[in-house]
């Protein structure tokens, strides 16, 4: 893939961390910036509510990435319903598409945002697919 800058990593993230509610941004790390710094792309999940068709569309995308050498993780927020990840709906959709559930990292809101940011950055930096999978696809 000459001249291609893709990072081969991405994270499923709740809408809340992309668009923090007014007043809440100080209690959460800047997840978007941390993902960018760690060469991750974003798969934004919808806000809470009924979004079954959109979740199915997102599951299709995760399946395509996961089956072709991309490392996919999920970054949720502790204390949100389903950690903001729609996990009760999303997990069966992923299993149905033969996708192993992505590793999950939960951000704790209301504690030191800088510490949470460092914890997230470490999680992101440490995760990748096994070398054999990387070599198979990332050429």
């Amino acid at each position, binding site marked *: 893939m000459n001249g291609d*800058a893709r990072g081969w990593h991405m994270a499923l993230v709740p809408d809340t961390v992309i*668009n923090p509610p007014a007043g809440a941004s100080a209690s959460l790390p800047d997840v978007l910036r941390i993902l960018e710094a760690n060469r991750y*792309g974003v*798969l*934004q999940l919808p806000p809470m509510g009924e*979004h079954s068709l*959109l979740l199915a569309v997102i599951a299709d*995308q995760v399946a395509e990435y996961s089956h072709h050498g991309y490392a996919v993780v999920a970054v949720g927020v502790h204390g949100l319903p389903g950690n903001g990840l729609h996990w009760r709906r999303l997990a069966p959709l992923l299993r149905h598409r033969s996708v192993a559930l992505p590793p999950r990292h939960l951000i704790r809101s209301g504690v030191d945002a800088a510490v949470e940011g460092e914890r997230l950055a470490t999680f992101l930096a440490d995760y990748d697919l096994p070398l054999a999978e990387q070599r198979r696809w990332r050429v």
Partner: protein
Amino acid sequence: MEQNPPRKVALIASCLLNQNAKVCQGAHYPGVVSPVVEALRSRGYLLQQLPCPELAFAGVRRWWAVYEQYDTPAYRAHCRRLAQAIAPLIEQYLRQGDELILIGLDGSPSTGVRFTSSKPEWGGRPNRPEDDWEIVPRRGIWIEELEAELARRGLPPIPATGWALDMGRFDEAGARRDLEQFLDDR
């Protein structure tokens, strides 16, 4: 009943938050297209990522293609399904009085807003000479279908522009000026 103040919301092409969606050799950033995100966030926009139509249809290892190759009933039906998936969220924003804009990807056969790529002769064995497609002033297929779905729901047109990533030679500084002018003129 107290009403929430209107918000500014940017609907953005999937690959502007995730360059892994790009066709092979098309990714200019590792993940997030930071100049777009910075320009929007610094002006108070919320971000709403749109689905990537090409990825889920032709896959992450798809060949490069032009507008005419994607202009098929099956691809348009796929785009309509995606539009139906995201339209309820967009409708919710609009019904709440939020101010929406759309940032696509100029030059893309799917997500182009002001421009798309065209070459009616493309097809068959993928051995075309480099950069022999043309840029024409037209929406991409996905944007056409998304706008049609919103119109079917009686929703107003959303002001739109494109980040000029797929126009042949990518000029980041020019694309940034262009986007900032669009945002500041609003």
